[in-house]
């Protein structure tokens, strides 16, 4: 099969050359950060590392880590490396404990991000003749903006649908003959089912490929989506902190995602000790941006558990591949593509006059995440009227939606009925079988 690349010279560059390029960029990036980001300069000084100690990627391990809590501490401008006058955009993650992560971009940063997404689209078989339907959310979420930009770069006719409104998605998809679909895998599965209900067969729509990410999904789901939509389904990885989707993308081999190593330097570390692990070992994925201007993060801990591989890929790309993340190092859940922290749920409960005695139950039914929270009622809240209890559940559900961005189903239960192990409640039951 003939291969297309968006930036062939980078994507198929010999590994030694990529490493040389990374080393050059890293030295400059560290200098840029040290000079412009007081927060990280302090971390380096505390560790006794100077920019001149970093002579290449072999010195990466000397640098201090950054984690989500640093982003929270430094919110909003503490990790900014360019004057705001040079920045042209922000993107943001769904809130974490009431405080969002806000990432800044210069025009250069947006260009390189969109290049990464363009590589993903071309790897999925996209060309300027394609009609690319972007059904990721637009706005602060990076999904819509990233794939939209990438699609423009490739020269596809871009349908900026954003998420939701399935009827309209299907109408545009069929009327305008979309050939590439970009959205979350669960939404792709849902669209597939809706099309089927309308009597559309895979042959009756011109869709040929999908680029799906922003939430965990399985090989089984991939097969299912590929069959119902009659397409090839490709995985894409990214996080707002490093730019957005496109940090890594899948090629025709569909055996892991090529990391855009000219922009992002990946490491796998032992999440307990922070020690760098050799290739092929499972550990926490850490990214260092190599040429970002506004929001360059060095050694950012993603909390994703993952494996890297340099095995030769049949697509011709030499970029290192990451496996689908196998889990998280913390208790963050990704539900319907949204990051949910138990601490956010506790905050809402306390605000609404409940004790933080609760249990989260996540499952996946028909390829959609279900999200239920059992909450212990206070004795004084109990009433003999069913309607009042139901309206308490509704009100709490709405408060959760405001905080989390997604709507859980609330179930009020009697006090002291949530199972506790060793005095501590079992907070999360995740029944989704993803690995």
């Amino acid at each position: 099969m003939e291969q297309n690349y968006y930036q062939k010279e980078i994507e198929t560059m010999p590994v030694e050359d990529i490493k040389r390029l990374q080393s050059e960029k890293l030295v400059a990036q560290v200098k840029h950060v040290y000079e412009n980001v007081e927060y990280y300069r302090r971390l380096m000084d505390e560790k006794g590392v100077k920019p001149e100690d970093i002579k290449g990627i072999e010195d990466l391990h000397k640098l201090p880590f950054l984690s989500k809590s640093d982003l929270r501490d430094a919110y909003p401008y503490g990790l900014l490396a360019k004057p705001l006058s040079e920045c042209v955009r922000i993107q943001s993650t769904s809130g974490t404990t009431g405080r969002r992560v806000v990432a800044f971009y210069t025009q250069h940063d947006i260009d390189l991000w969109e290049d990464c997404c363009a590589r993903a689209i071309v790897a999925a078989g996209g060309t300027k003749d394609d009609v690319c339907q972007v059904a990721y959310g637009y706005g602060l979420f990076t999904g819509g903006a990233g794939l939209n930009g990438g699609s423009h770069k490739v020269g596809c006719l871009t349908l900026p649908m954003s998420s939701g409104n399935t009827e309209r998605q299907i109408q545009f998809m069929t009327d305008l003959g979309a050939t590439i679909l970009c959205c979350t895998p669960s939404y792709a599965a849902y669209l597939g089912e809706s099309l089927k209900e309308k009597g559309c067969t895979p042959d009756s729509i011109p869709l040929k490929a999908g680029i799906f990410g922003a939430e965990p999904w399985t090989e089984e789901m991939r097969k299912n989506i590929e069959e119902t939509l009659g397409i090839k389904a490709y995985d894409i990885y990214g996080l707002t902190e490093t730019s957005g989707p496109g940090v890594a993308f899948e090629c025709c081999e569909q055996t892991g995602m090529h990391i855009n190593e000219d922009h992002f330097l990946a490491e796998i570390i032992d999440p307990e000790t922070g020690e760098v692990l050799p290739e092929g070992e499972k550990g926490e994925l850490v990214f260092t941006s190599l040429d970002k201007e506004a929001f360059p993060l060095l050694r950012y801990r993603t909390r994703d558990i993952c494996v890297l591989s340099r095995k030769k890929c049949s697509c011709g790309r030499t970029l290192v591949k990451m496996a689908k993340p196998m889990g998280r190092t913390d208790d963050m859940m990704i539900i319907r593509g949204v990051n949910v922290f138990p601490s956010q749920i506790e905050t809402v409960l306390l605000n609404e006059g409940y004790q933080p005695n609760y249990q989260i139950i996540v499952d996946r039914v028909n390829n959609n995440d279900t999200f239920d929270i059992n909450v212990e009622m206070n004795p004084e809240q109990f009433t003999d009227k069913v309607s009042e209890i139901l309206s308490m559940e509704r009100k709490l559900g709405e408060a959760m939606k405001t905080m989390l961005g997604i709507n859980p189903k609330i179930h009020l239960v009697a006090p002291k009925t949530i199972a506790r192990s060793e005095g501590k409640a079992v907070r999360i039951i995740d029944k989704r079988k993803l690995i």
Partner: protein
Amino acid sequence: MAIKQITVFVENKQGALVSITDILAKSNINLRALSIAETNDFGILRLIVNDVETAKKALSDNGYLIKVTDVVGVKIGDAPGKLTAALSVLDKSGINMEYLYAFMARTERHAYVVLRVEDNEIAESALEREGFHLITDADINKL
């Protein structure tokens, strides 16, 4: 005038109801009337018993979520149209009703209706004005 009703939160689990009735039986509680409202997730069991204090203590000691509420008890004749007559009184007085349940009296040719309304006093005086006989906890205990 009102009578006392015990409301119990019942989990939607196998055996949940029998555990409650078992506790009451062991405390020598006699049930006069009951109703259950159910949702997908839980049930609300409402009880009229011969000894409210003992029943209340037994249930709370066993960890049940309970609430004691005042409800209106009214005696009606055991004949067609008698319930309608009582309900019409409430309707004409513009009294909203949450729920009701009824039970037969054992000896006389009467039935009793338990009414949960917004305002007990208004409902009671409306019913009395129309000649209805209201029942009290003392009446219940005598049953």
